[in-house]
């Protein structure tokens, strides 16, 4: 068969092989459908503008097992350190420093913390997976800022 197999035929055979070998698990599709429940409309999105995990190995490198990220929205910056111990610890800093209600969303679980007057907050024992932070600022704007979903 492979004697006269054209490029298109060979590619089709490869496509069929990949599909048969690595079928998409139904649980993965269910999880994709379920992400819709996280739809929010009114929050301002803070985009990931720095991630130490994105830097080249020779570049800025923090202590082993600590990942630094910065999320930026027009009004506030959220700096995070993800410290990988047995479970992850997230240490955050709001810039400018301010008190706010901080929610950590992780799969179907939401935890609440408060930043102190210096804008610092911490979440302990965070399992791996997709997370997002929602910050309800206590200033006169009362703005709600959300980070992008990020895999930790």
């Amino acid at each position: 068969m492979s004697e006269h197999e054209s490029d298109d035929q060979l590619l089709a055979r490869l496509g069929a092989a990949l599909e048969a070998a690595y079928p998409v698990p139904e649980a993965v599709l269910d999880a994709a459908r379920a992400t819709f429940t996280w739809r929010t409309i009114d929050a301002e999105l803070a985009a990931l503008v720095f991630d130490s995990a994105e830097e080249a190995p020779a570049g800025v490198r923090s202590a082993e097992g600590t990942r630094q990220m910065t999320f930026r929205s027009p009004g506030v910056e959220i700096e995070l350190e993800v410290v990988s111990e047995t479970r992850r610890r997230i240490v955050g800093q709001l810039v400018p420093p301010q008190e706010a209600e901080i929610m950590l969303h992780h799969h179907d679980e939401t935890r609440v913390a408060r930043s102190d007057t210096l804008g610092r907050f911490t979440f302990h024992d965070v399992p791996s997976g997709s997370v997002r932070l929602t910050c309800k600022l206590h200033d006169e704007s009362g703005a709600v800022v959300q980070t992008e979903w990020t895999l930790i």
Partner: protein
Amino acid sequence: MCMAIADQKRVAMGVSSSMMAEAPIADLLAAAHNGSQEAWNSLVDHYGRLVWSVVRGFRLDAATAADVSQTVWLRLVEHSDRIRDPERLGSWLATTARNESIRVLKRQSRSVPTEFSVDVADEGAPGIDERLLDDEQLRDVLVAFEDISQRCRELLQMLCLDPPLEYEEISEILGMAIGSIGPTRARCLDRIRKKLERR
């Protein structure tokens, strides 16, 4: 029991999903943004395999690959009103899946390996489907595929996506000149062919 509920849901969604399946991607995106879970499900039906294929191509373990796939869809949830060209949603998803996979790989390569092996569940590993072993034609081509360069594997994988991407989209995603996709495709397929001949 969980299976039964999931099946019922699928049956319940069946009729309307097939109606939405014909809708243009732009309409599905808009409907999803306005709150239609049904439209969202249609997008997942259409592109779920594509996202998985891209992520899986990076040889992540099953649990991590599932996390990356979910992150990609979460990104789409938050960006559903910001997709500039809805007809190129496949390209946007493939790019996001690729970037997120690379980010995870970079992170894993510099972390203590044991830390990750603790988190990883073995269930549902994206291993080779046993049914495949019965089909020698498919098994052979897959063995040959696993033995070519990463660059070739990635290009061929992009060319096998369902729904397919345009050359122009693949060129952007892989940072490969559009004119070199055709020749590279031929060269990579030739490498597979040579390995098949040697068997």
